[in-house]
């Protein structure tokens, strides 16, 4: 039987959706983000319910989930781009733009509020000179709210680059931010 040759442009069309072809082509892509995404998808696509693990890995490797990765993920998992976009935007953890060099997450939930969390949040805004969901002008810090770090008996709590800190006063926050910058410089 005659084996039909697949045309290279099939990789970006519906014809190759969910298939090996789309992934092979994407892994060879000159765009690093697409190639990296394709490698991740190739590794994880056979998991049951692979989308969240894929998105976590892509964000871990690329720092965010860029628009060009969405197309690759959608094709390889046989989803529409709208579906993938919908999932990315539903979950606050996923971001389409890279964060600054460091991420400061300040807990805004009730227990921290009971211990001066609102005051701390206001101080974080002033100290960094940016609002929540935004980054400082120098690209050093992204400020994010978080709804509970599970350190409620030691409120208020923050997380800096994944490291938890408890009983945080404005002074302690200033020291932590300085220490973070010093450690990375």
């Amino acid at each position, binding site marked *: 039987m005659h084996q039909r040759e697949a045309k290279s442009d099939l990789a970006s069309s519906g014809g190759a959706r969910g298939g090996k072809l789309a992934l092979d082509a994407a892994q060879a892509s000159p765009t690093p983000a697409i190639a990296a995404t394709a490698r991740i998808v190739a590794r994880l696509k056979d998991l*049951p*319910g*692979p*989308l*969240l*693990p894929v*998105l*976590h890995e892509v964000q871990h490797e690329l720092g965010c989930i860029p628009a060009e990765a969405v197309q690759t993920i959608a094709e390889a*998992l046989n989803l529409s781009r709208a*579906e993938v976009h*919908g*999932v990315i935007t*539903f*979950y*606050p*953890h*996923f971001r389409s733009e890279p964060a600054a060099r460091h991420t400061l997450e300040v*807990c805004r*939930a*009730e*227990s*921290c*509020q*009971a*211990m001066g969390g609102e005051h701390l949040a206001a101080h974080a805004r002033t100290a960094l000179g940016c609002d929540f969901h935004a980054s400082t002008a120098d690209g050093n810090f992204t400020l994010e709210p*978080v*709804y*509970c*770090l*599970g*350190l*409620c*008996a*030691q*409120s208020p*709590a923050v*997380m800096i680059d*994944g*490291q*938890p*800190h*408890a*009983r945080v006063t404005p002074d302690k926050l200033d020291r932590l931010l300085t220490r973070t910058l010093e450690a990375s410089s």
Partner: protein
Amino acid sequence: MTAPVVIYVPRDAAALAMDADAVARGIERAADERGLSVQVVRNGSRGLLWLEPLVEVATPDGRVAYGPVAPEDVAALFDAGWLTGGAHPLRLGLTEDIPYLKHQERLTFARVGIIDPLSLQDYAAHGGLAGLKRALAMEPAQIVDEMVTSGLRGRGGAAFPTGIKWKTVAGSPSDQKYIVCNADEGDSGTFADRLLMEGDPYVLIEGMTIAGLAVGATYGYIYVRSEYPHAIATLEAAIARARSVGWLGSDVHGSGRVFDLEVRKGAGAYICGEETSLLESLEGKRGVVRAKPPLPAISGLFGKPTVINNVISLATVPIILAKGAAYYRDYGVGRSHGTLPFQLAGNLKQGGLVEKAFGLSLRDLLYEFGGGSASGRPLRAVQVGGPLGAYLPESQWDVPLDYEAYIQISAMIGHGGLVAFDDTVDMARMARYAMEFCAIESCGKCTPCRIGSTRGVETLDKIATGDASQREQQVHLLRDLCDTMMGGSLCALGGMAPYPVLSALNHFPQDFGIESSQSAAHAA
């Protein structure tokens, strides 16, 4: 050569957040400099969280606690001879004799803080695996009966009888069934799941394995929120070790039975703590709530019969099997059997984890254990059961902690978390926050929750800042809105967000600028 002195420095995030890693390094360095032989073991947290990092030294008389230990205290502790239990201002005596711990009834948390969480030997030596070994010798139906008899109810908040849920799954024939552990502990004021996962991961693995045997499921997922990176790392390491020694896999403990599991990471959506939304998320979709029926027990993950239980429920299964249903059932009051790990948070001097049988009062927890407010000011309100739980005024602090008694006062025990506020709290602001939180976290599927929460924020703003003559009307509107949300929402997020709002309004009307008589008429 003498054996090294064992020093326990917790590896729990609560201790890490107070510099426990630096303390552990400092101890090793100081011991080295002094030519002393010590072995630092990284245990879980004892749950005395105001004392973290709580360092324990193993002496011939028992484990002696020192805390809270800062890195700069280490040298002085060595000078004080702490390796033999020497006196020092931070010395707390034998850990087991600290009243906070001594007065607890630790069943689910029996090993947490005592063992090295990842040590298979420690786990087996401290009573682990006894439940599973008994379960392996039983018929699946007997295991389910044991769970029904124990009276265990879902510890995630909904308090549905765990055994009944299992019975439904066991009775639903299918080629594949799943055990899903809900570890999306998003409620403020709760950390029991996290302490357990970081302090005794094998008990959760054992509980899920028993659940698998009982209902005929061969695969499990633990859905952990991304805000808990340390819990995720601990669970993953524990699963790998359990698999390597045959506690998980195709021949569980040499029984020929199959059970394996994996960790899946959430992505910051509070709603994914709702069971059907969690299942959607596991399937790789937006965490949008499903309409019930069908129940997950009949059509759950990937459309298959699924047991979905909270961490604490599943981690309590091994002790029920090990000691028998009656042993567990005899704790507690009324239809609230067993123990609940209460979590003391917010403005309390001694925040932490208190596992006690149901039936004690909030006042006991706040003052006997919590030691009153951290700020030194009088306590005013306590939110019990997370962001969707009611605010309780002092007049309700003597109601026994029992699921049914709490329902009677329009409150809920939920996951057992309580957040205390002193008299500086503005309850109108807390009510607004409850609506705002619901608006932020709503999945958007049903209108009462999606739109109602936003309208609720607006109405509360009008009450706070608007024309005083319109206030009564706005309060009326707010109550009407709450009624719609409670009656018309698809899940507990929209259905229960009115609880904190209405309780604040009913018990603290002065904060809303309204007459108490006006509010009391509605509350009656």
